[in-house]
């Protein structure tokens, strides 16, 4: 077996309560790495077209990659793959915490959970004994994620669902420690199986091809990360909420259900404000991560809990016209404990408020008013009253109540907190990302709106190229499985210290903006391992990985996801943005929104797809994508 892999897949059937171990396929690992890539390959192969996402035929696949368990910083993440009940296409989530570490210690690369249990069940997996015990979870059913993990104890690593998953909220997530695989409703699929928790244990050691070089390099890198202006300073000090003032200045923070891109008091939900007003306890991290981007906050009546991320602060804050952090902290805690995606939740609440404003729904919710929001979040998780409606997300709500022009989703997945009207590459990324309107499948906005070296976000130059390169890279990273935040470290301190007003800064951005094909060519070169992803993979597996290899693997995964979506009935027509994003402007100098129609044909051409967004056969052949 290739080094870095445990070499085993655990296949569990909840219907007849059986399990088996089988070897990981080396060729698939070479082509798809692991994590999201390997998981998508399995999903494609294991399921016929058209299955019910909440039915027994939808497998729930927990997948690690070659870097998990290696002690590389930011490598304790697992991917979850299934058919999404929210979008009907590829469902995937990624989660920190400690579960990935536990799976690898148990000698398991991938856990497939098939079928459904008739009653609530939990699994205890012991990798040393090669055993899986099916236990009644009746007493845990109904408990929040925190109480569930407390009841399961500290001896094992857990992945659990809260009430939102049990009640099939279409944007329910899966929780490990204080982190959540939030997007696309993977928690609802776990709930449909009546699987409350998976706990793993084991004492196996990961085999690394060149342990000495890996250790030396990782030691050096930890120091680099700790002194890096983003990883060691900004993220460590302010968490992801440290970006609030930047997106607000850029006019891209969702405000009033994305009607606006700026809120005059957004500063009150920023990481700086949180830090400055004593609302932060200790920093928190996934295991072995030197960045510690999480932070604890105090919520009245609950105590110290993990605080909100940027997405949550923006979408439960300015998006609802709320700028009181106490509310944001409370709602974030509710979402985490009930086990649901706070991005989809924030967008859904904003949509319900706008429907109320326009007289299309009597939700009792209003912009700028916290009244009733906490109760509504509880109702959503338990599918009570109107909460049952909101539990289906904005796409389905807009079909029932109207308001499709301002239902903020792509392919059914609610939009993240970067308004694409001020970030054109991010808009192309939202429109084309296979799991829907998500920001962490490329994070293109970093190159045009938020990072230290940004090109004009509203010109058309490079706005089709950046998403392609970034989506490919994100696919590879999510298959190792690493935290995407490691990519921030690629930009050195010297660049962060460049004055945007300087001639040098303007020259670099001018040239970058015009680099076009050269940019794509450079990223495809297979010269030698440069970044830490490439170095780590090379040291761990003993095979050489370069930027070009990762682009190729990522492109392969992206195309396989695309083929899955096409098989399930999605088309190029789903590569779009909400009407509000295309036709309403938030910038005084423009009278329309995102110019997607001008960018999509170029994006398709670069991808090697036809005009309808279908991968050409020669593209699939080149990438060795079997369909």
């Amino acid at each position, binding site marked *: 077996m290739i080094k870095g892999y445990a070499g085993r897949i655990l296949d569990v059937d909840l219907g007849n309560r059986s399990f088996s171990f089988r070897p990981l396929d080396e060729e698939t690992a070479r082509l798809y790495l692991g994590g999201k890539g390997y998981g998508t390959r399995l999903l494609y192969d294991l399921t016929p077209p058209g299955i019910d996402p909440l039915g027994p035929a939808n497998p729930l696949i927990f997948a690690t990659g070659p870097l998990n368990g290696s002690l590389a910083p930011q490598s304790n993440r697992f991917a979850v793959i299934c058919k999404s009940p929210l979008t009907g296409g590829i469902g995937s989530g990624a989660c920190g915490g400690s579960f990935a570490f536990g799976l690898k210690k148990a000698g398991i690369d991938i856990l497939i959970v098939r079928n459904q249990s008739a009653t609530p069940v939990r699994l205890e997996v012991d990798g040393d004994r090669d055993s899986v015990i099916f236990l009644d979870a009746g007493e845990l059913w109904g408990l929040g994620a925190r109480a569930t993990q407390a009841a399961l104890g500290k001896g094992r690593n857990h992945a659990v669902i809260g009430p939102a998953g049990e009640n099939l909220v279409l944007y329910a997530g899966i929780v490990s420690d204080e982190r959540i695989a939030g997007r696309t409703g993977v928690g609802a699929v776990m709930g449909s199986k009546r699987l409350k928790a998976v706990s793993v244990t084991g004492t196996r050691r990961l085999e690394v091809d060149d342990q000495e070089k890996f250790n030396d390099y990782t030691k050096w890198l930890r120091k680099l990360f700790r002194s890096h202006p983003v990883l060691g300073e900004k993220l460590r000090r302010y968490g992801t909420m440290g*970006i609030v003032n*930047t997106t607000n200045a850029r006019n891209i923070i969702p405000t009033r259900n994305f009607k606006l*891109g700026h809120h005059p008091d957004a500063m009150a939900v920023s990481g700086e404000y949180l830090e400055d007003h004593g609302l932060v306890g200790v920093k928190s991290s996934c295991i072995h991560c030197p960045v510690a981007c999480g932070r604890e906050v105090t919520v009245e009546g609950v105590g110290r809990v993990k605080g909100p991320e940027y997405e949550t602060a923006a979408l439960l804050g300015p998006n609802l016209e709320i700028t009181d952090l106490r509310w944001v902290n409370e709602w974030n805690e509710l979402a985490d404990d009930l086990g649901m995606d706070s991005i989809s939740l924030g967008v859904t609440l904003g949509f319900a408020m706008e429907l109320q404003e326009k007289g299309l729904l009597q939700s009792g919710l209003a912009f700028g008013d916290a009244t009733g929001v906490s109760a509504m979040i509880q109702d959503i998780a338990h599918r009570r009253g109107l909460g049952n409606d909101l539990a289906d997300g904005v796409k389905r709500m807009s079909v029932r109540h109207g308001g499709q022009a301002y239902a903020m989703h792509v392919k059914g997945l609610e939009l993240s907190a970067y308004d694409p009207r001020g970030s054109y590459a991010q808009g192309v990324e939202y429109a084309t990302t296979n799991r829907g309107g998500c920001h962490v499948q490329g994070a293109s906005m970093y190159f045009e709106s938020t990072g230290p070296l940004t090109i004009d976000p509203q010109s058309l130059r490079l706005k089709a190229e950046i998403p392609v390169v970034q989506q490919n890279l994100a696919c590879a990273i999510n298959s190792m499985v690493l935290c995407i935040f490691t990519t921030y470290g690629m930009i050195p301190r010297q660049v962060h210290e460049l004055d945007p*007003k300087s001639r040098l800064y303007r020259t670099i951005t001018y040239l970058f903006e015009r680099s076009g094909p050269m940019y794509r060519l450079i990223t495809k070169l297979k010269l030698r391992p440069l970044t830490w992803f490439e170095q780590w993979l090379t040291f761990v597996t003993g095979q050489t990985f370069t930027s070009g290899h990762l682009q190729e693997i990522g492109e392969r995964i992206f195309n396989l996801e695309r083929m899955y979506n096409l098989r399930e009935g999605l088309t190029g027509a789903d590569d779009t943005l909400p009407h509000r994003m295309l036709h309403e402007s*938030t*910038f005084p*100098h423009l009278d329309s929104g995102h110019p997607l129609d001008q960018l999509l044909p170029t994006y398709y051409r670069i991808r090697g797809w036809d005009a309808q967004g279908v991968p050409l056969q020669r593209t699939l052949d080149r990438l060795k994508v079997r369909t």
Partner: protein
Amino acid sequence: MSVTVELTYDLAKALGVRRLELEGTPTLRQVLALTRDRFGAEGATFDKLTRVTALVVNGVLVGQGRAQNTPLLDGDRVSFLKAAAGG
């Protein structure tokens, strides 16, 4: 006739206000000078806190040269921009 100047967190903390309202329609160059004036004898603090920031008008990054000397419009919003990373 006025323009709003939104400060970075550090600037706001130093001045004790989140934003400034400037009468008339000054140019960006004048906005910078007027904002710096608010720091009085602590002008060096302003210089330090704005060293690696860009200027943004209504969400759009403004270049150097002529743009700095063009009068702003009534209701314009000027922000100081710092790079950041989120997720």
